[in-house]
C-alpha cells in the first residue's frame, strides 16, 4: 500500500508514592483518582477524545492511549506526544487533589514497558495491510527486520544476569526482548509474540487486515518513534511490492532477539534458517538498501537517519545517536551517572534513573530535562503537539470521528463512538458506520453532525459535565 493507515497504542506504568518512595496508593486506587475527570466527562473510563484518539484504563490498571488512525508518521508522533501531554495533565490534576486531601502522595506515569518485578506492558504498533496480500508470507520477511530493528529503535535499558548466569548487569538495546516468547501467535500476555495475529482491521474486513506488531519498546525520542513506523512501513511496502526480497529468515527468532539486545556491536553472528549466518547490522543494512528505491523524496530523511543509526552501532561512534535515539541517549547518560556515583549499571539508582527517563511529567521527567538542554531531540514544535491534543488527523477517518466527538462535547449531547461507528444515545438514534479508514467525507456523518447541532430538529437537552 502506497498510502497506509497506522496507529500506536501505549500502555503507561503507574506508581503512587510518598515522599520516602514507599507506595502510597495501590495502582487500582491511583488509576481511579487519575481517571476521575475522564469518568465525569464521559461516564466511563473508556472514551474517545476530540483528537479522535481513545483514552482508557486497561487490564492491570494501565492507563492507555491509542492514537487515531494516521497516514503520516510525523502526524502519528504528534498524536502520540499529545497523548503524553493529556495524561501528564491528568496526573498533575490528580496530584493536586491528593495534596489538597492531605494525602502526601504523588502519582508518576511512566511511558515504559516493565515494572520492578518484570511485569511487562506494551507499545503496540498497528499497520493496515491489504487483505489480498499473502499474510502467511509476511512474517518470513518481516521477522528478521523486527528482531534486529532494536539496534535503531530500542529504548535501551539494563538487564541483570539470569539464574545461573555470572557477570555484571549490562546495557541492552531493548529489555522487551526478554519478554518475547514466540514469533507469531494470537497470544498477548503469557507467550507474548513479536507479531500478534489479532485481525481487527477496524475497517472493511474484505479489503483490509491489521498487522499488530507488539515487539516495540515505548520510545520517548520523537526520532525513535518516527523511525519505528517509517522504517517498518517501507519494509512492508517492499514486501507488498512483490520483487525478490532479502532472504534472511533466522534459525531461531527468539534466541536471536535476545542475543541482538545484548550485543552492542551488532556484529554477533545470527544463524539463519538456510544454515548460514548474518548479523543485526547486516540485516538492517540489507533492508535499508533494499527499500531505498521505494522511498519518495519526503522519505529521504528516514533513509539518512536509519543509516546513521546503523553506523552508530557498526562503528561504535555514537556522536549522532547519543542525542537522537533513545537507547544511545540512555547508554551515555547511564554511563555518566554510574561513573559519577561510583556504582555499576546494576545499582538501584540506575534503575530509578531509567524510570525517571520515561516519566512523562515535565517536572519529574528526565527526558524532558534532556530536551530542555538540547541533549534529546525536539523535532515537533510545541504548537503542533498542543494542537494535536484537540485536533484529529485531517487525512483519515479520524477527521470524521474528531468532528463528531467535538460537536457532541461542545453541545453536551450524549454519544457513543468507537473506531468505526458513531451514534447518539437518544432513543431511536441510528448508528453511522464508516468502514473506510481513509474516508474524510461522509454524507451520513454530515447528517449526524446536523442532528447533534440540533439543526435538524430540537436537540435533546442532556448536557454532560
Amino acid at each position, binding site marked *: 500500500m502506497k498510502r497506509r493507515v497506522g496507529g500506536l497504542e501505549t500502555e503507561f506504568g503507574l506508581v503512587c508514592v510518598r515522599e520516602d518512595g514507599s507506595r502510597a496508593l495501590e495502582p487500582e486506587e491511583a488509576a481511579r483518582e487519575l481517571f476521575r475527570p475522564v469518568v465525569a466527562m464521559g461516564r466511563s473510563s473508556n472514551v474517545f477524545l476530540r483528537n479522535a484518539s481513545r483514552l482508557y484504563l486497561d487490564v492491570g490498571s494501565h492507563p492507555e492511549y491509542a492514537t487515531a488512525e494516521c497516514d503520516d508518521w*510525523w502526524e502519528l508522533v504528534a498524536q502520540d506526544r499529545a497523548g503524553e501531554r493529556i495524561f501528564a495533565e491528568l496526573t498533575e490534576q490528580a496530584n493536586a487533589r491528593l495534596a489538597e486531601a492531605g494525602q502526601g502522595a504523588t502519582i508518576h506515569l511512566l511511558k515504559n514497558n516493565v*515494572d520492578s518485578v518484570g*511485569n511487562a506492558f506494551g507499545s503496540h504498533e498497528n499497520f493496515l495491510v491489504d487483505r489480498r496480500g499473502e499474510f502467511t508470507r509476511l512474517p518470513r520477511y518481516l521477522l528478521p527486520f523486527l528482531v534486529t530493528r532494536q539496534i535503531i529503535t530500542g529504548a535501551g535499558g539494563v538487564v541483570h544476569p539470569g539464574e545461573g548466569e555470572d557477570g555484571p548487569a549490562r546495557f541492552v538495546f531493548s529489555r522487551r526482548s526478554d519478554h518475547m516468547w514466540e514469533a507469531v501467535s494470537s497470544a498477548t500476555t503469557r507467550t507474548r509474540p513479536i507479531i500478534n495475529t489479532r485481525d481487527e482491521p477496524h475497517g472493511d474486513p474484505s479489503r483490509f487486515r491489521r498487522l499488530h506488531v507488539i515487539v516495540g519498546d515505548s520510545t520517548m525520542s520523537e526520532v525513535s518513534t518516527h523511525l519505528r513506523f517509517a522504517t517498518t512501513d517501507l519494509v512492508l511496502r517492499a514486501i507488498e511490492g512483490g520483487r525478490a526480497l532479502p532472504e534472511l529468515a533466522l534459525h531461531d527468532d527468539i534466541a536471536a532477539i535476545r542475543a541482538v539486545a545484548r550485543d552492542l556491536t551488532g556484529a554477533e553472528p545470527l544463524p539463519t534458517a538456510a544454515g548460514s549466518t548474518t548479523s543485526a547490522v547486516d540485516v538492517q543494512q540489507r533492508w535499508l538498501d533494499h527499500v531505498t528505491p521505494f522511498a519518495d523524496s519526503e522519505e529521504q530523511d528516514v533513509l539518512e537517519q536509519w543509516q546513521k543509526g546503523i553506523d552508530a552501532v557498526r562503528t561504535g561512534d555514537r556522536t549522532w545517536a547519543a542525542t537522537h535515539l533513545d537507547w544511545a541517549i540512555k547508554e551515555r547518560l547511564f554511563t555518566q551517572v554510574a561513573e559519577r556515583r561510583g556504582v555499576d549499571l546494576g545499582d538501584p539508582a540506575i*534503575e*530509578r534513573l531509567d524510570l525517571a527517563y520515561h516519566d512523562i511529567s515535565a517536572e519529574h521527567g528526565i527526558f524532558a530535562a534532556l530536551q530542555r538542554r538540547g*541533549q534529546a531531540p525536539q523535532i515537533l514544535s510545541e504548537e*503542533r503537539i498542543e494542537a494535536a491534543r484537540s485536533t484529529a488527523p485531517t487525512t483519515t477517518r479520524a477527521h470524521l470521528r474528531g468532528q463528531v466527538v467535538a460537536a457532541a462535547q461542545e453541545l453536551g449531547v450524549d454519544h457513543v463512538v468507537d473506531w468505526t461507528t458513531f451514534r447518539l444515545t437518544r432513543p431511536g438514534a441510528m448508528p453511522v458506520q464508516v468502514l473506510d479508514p481513509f474516508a474524510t467525507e461522509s454524507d451520513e456523518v454530515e447528517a449526524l453532525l446536523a442532528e447533534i447541532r440540533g439543526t435538524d430538529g430540537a436537540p435533546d437537552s442532556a448536557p454532560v459535565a
Partner: protein
Amino acid sequence: MSQQSLNAPGHGPEDSGEDAALAGGQVFASAQAADDLLDEIDSVLESNAETFVRSFVQKGGQ
C-alpha cells in the same frame, strides 16, 4: 508515506533544519548545562531510589 502532508507543517525540510540546529547546539552546549543536568538527576536519585523502584509493581497489561 508519500501522501501530500496536508497537516504536517513540521515535516520535511523544517525537520532537518531543526535537526541541524539541535546538532549545532549540541556541539556548543556548555559543560555547565551537562553539570546542571547531572545535579538535577542527583536530586531525583537521592530521594529513596531503591524504595521508589520497589514500589513500582503492576500486574501485566496488554
